[in-house]
């Protein structure tokens, strides 16, 4: 549920799901100094003040309390106001608190309101196959009688499955979650669903049972791709392939194989235009995540490691 306004419109539309015979007669009604979210008339003719919220909080209590107190003090004004809805209103009004979550502290406070009939209803917004539904669960019912104690429910729970209502000392009548009277699920189809429903009645479509014939063999499961384990290592300096020492005219260079590339003033015989330090993309990629070790050849290079040109140069040097 996005906001309380959405909840208000849904409850207004499906008030009878909340309570059979309940009709919403005014929304955002200003009663005295308080604004109550919904005002309805129940099947018994009682005025029902409904406070809505996503989470039960003090604001809901104050709004309902203010509206109720004004109704009690000015009954004629209320009767006049809602005369069109019902000629005879049953008195006193009832209060319904409805929210997605009603904390224990909220319910504890509600029990201490001197209102003869209070109901705390939690709603659950459900969605299945593109269809939204709202489920109402009555969490607490507070009833006070003339003595202010033994709570006698005005609306008896006539379900045999429901446990007998036990009145708590303060008049609070806790309800089990499975109380059938307290639950209602309303289905709200979206606009797209309604268009679809106009073509194919969804309600008429029976649920297709599972076929009795043996199910076709399941398709072969493609082999799972097992991720290659990556071993994290501390990055090492990549030593380029053993550069054959270029024969400088009349001078012999001494090159340390462990020298870093920047420090080693080595000129290698590479084809022109090909940078020395350039690595293939795969190598660069590999160097980012893990360091690819390149085998450092033995030093000094054996004759088999030299190319033909290098061998010739080497021979010439030896002859000289």
């Amino acid at each position, binding site marked *: 549920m996005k906001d309380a306004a959405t909840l208000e419109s849904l409850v207004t539309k499906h008030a009878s799901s909340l309570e059979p015979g309940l009709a919403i007669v005014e929304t955002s009604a200003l009663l005295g100094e308080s604004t109550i979210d919904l005002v309805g008339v129940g099947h018994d003719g009682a005025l029902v003040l409904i406070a809505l919220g996503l989470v039960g909080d003090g604001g809901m209590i104050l709004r309902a309390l203010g509206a109720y107190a004004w109704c009690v003090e000015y009954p004629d004004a209320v009767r006049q106001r809602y005369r069109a809805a019902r000629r005879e209103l049953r008195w*006193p009004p009832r209060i319904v608190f409805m929210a997605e979550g009603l904390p224990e*502290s909220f319910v504890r406070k509600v029990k201490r*309101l001197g209102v003869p009939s209070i109901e705390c209803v939690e709603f659950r917004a459900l969605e299945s196959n593109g269809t939204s539904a709202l489920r109402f669960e009555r969490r607490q019912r507070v009833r006070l009688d003339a003595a202010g104690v033994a709570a006698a429910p005005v609306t008896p729970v006539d379900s045999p499955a429901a446990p007998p209502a036990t009145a708590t000392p303060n008049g609070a009548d806790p309800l089990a979650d499975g109380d059938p009277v307290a639950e209602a699920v309303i289905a709200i189809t979206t606009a797209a669903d309604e268009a679809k429903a106009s073509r194919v009645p969804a309600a008429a479509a029976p649920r297709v049972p599972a076929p009795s014939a043996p199910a076709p063999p399941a398709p072969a499961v493609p082999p799972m791709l097992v991720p290659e384990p990556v071993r994290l290592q501390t990055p090492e300096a990549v030593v380029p392939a053993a550069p054959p020492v270029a024969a400088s005219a009349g001078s012999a260079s001494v090159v340390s194989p462990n020298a870093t590339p920047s420090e080693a003033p080595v000129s290698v015989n590479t084809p022109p235009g090909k940078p020395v330090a350039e690595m293939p993309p795969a190598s660069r990629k590999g160097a980012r995540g893990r360091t690819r070790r390149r085998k450092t050849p033995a030093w000094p290079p054996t004759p088999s490691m030299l190319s033909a040109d290098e061998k010739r140069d080497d021979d010439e040097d030896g002859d000289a």
Partner: protein
Amino acid sequence: MLRLQKRALDDVKALEKLVVGNAEALEPEVRIIDARLVLGDATIDLVGVDADGGLTLIALGLEADGNMILRTLGAFSWAVDDPAAVKQRYPATNIDVGKVPRVMFIAERLPEGFRRQVRQLDVPAIDCVEVRHFDAGRTTAISFEVVERIRRGVPVAAGAAAGDGSAPASSATDVSPAWRQFFPPA
């Protein structure tokens, strides 16, 4: 002749100081035993014990509003639901846990809308007190005026359920809750 000049209260803290210092003027033999007590999820400004050992929850404000009602409602419900915890918190104080706590709203101004809401609370004894602070020459004076006394003397749900059918602690005017009129006498 002493001339009194009304003096505005700066904040709730100043009011709290005045009430703590002049608790006897508020009601004889009432003792303030704690301030800003957290009961459950609510914080009540002052906690007192009256002459009969009954717990008194006092909510303060410059102008009474809904927040005062909510705080009091939270603290009261917690104290009623778990009186043993209250007793445990003040072991040295002789608190009668069999008595349902009383509630006092003290403010400079208690609007009619506020009092209308307070009348609909299921609390056995509520006092709405307006406080006035005066400059009186070289000294100051304070006046507590009870503008509404609600449901005093009505045995409440918890007390009746516990078999406590004793007479009310106070002999003040019995003001029945407003909703009682809707039920015919048995």
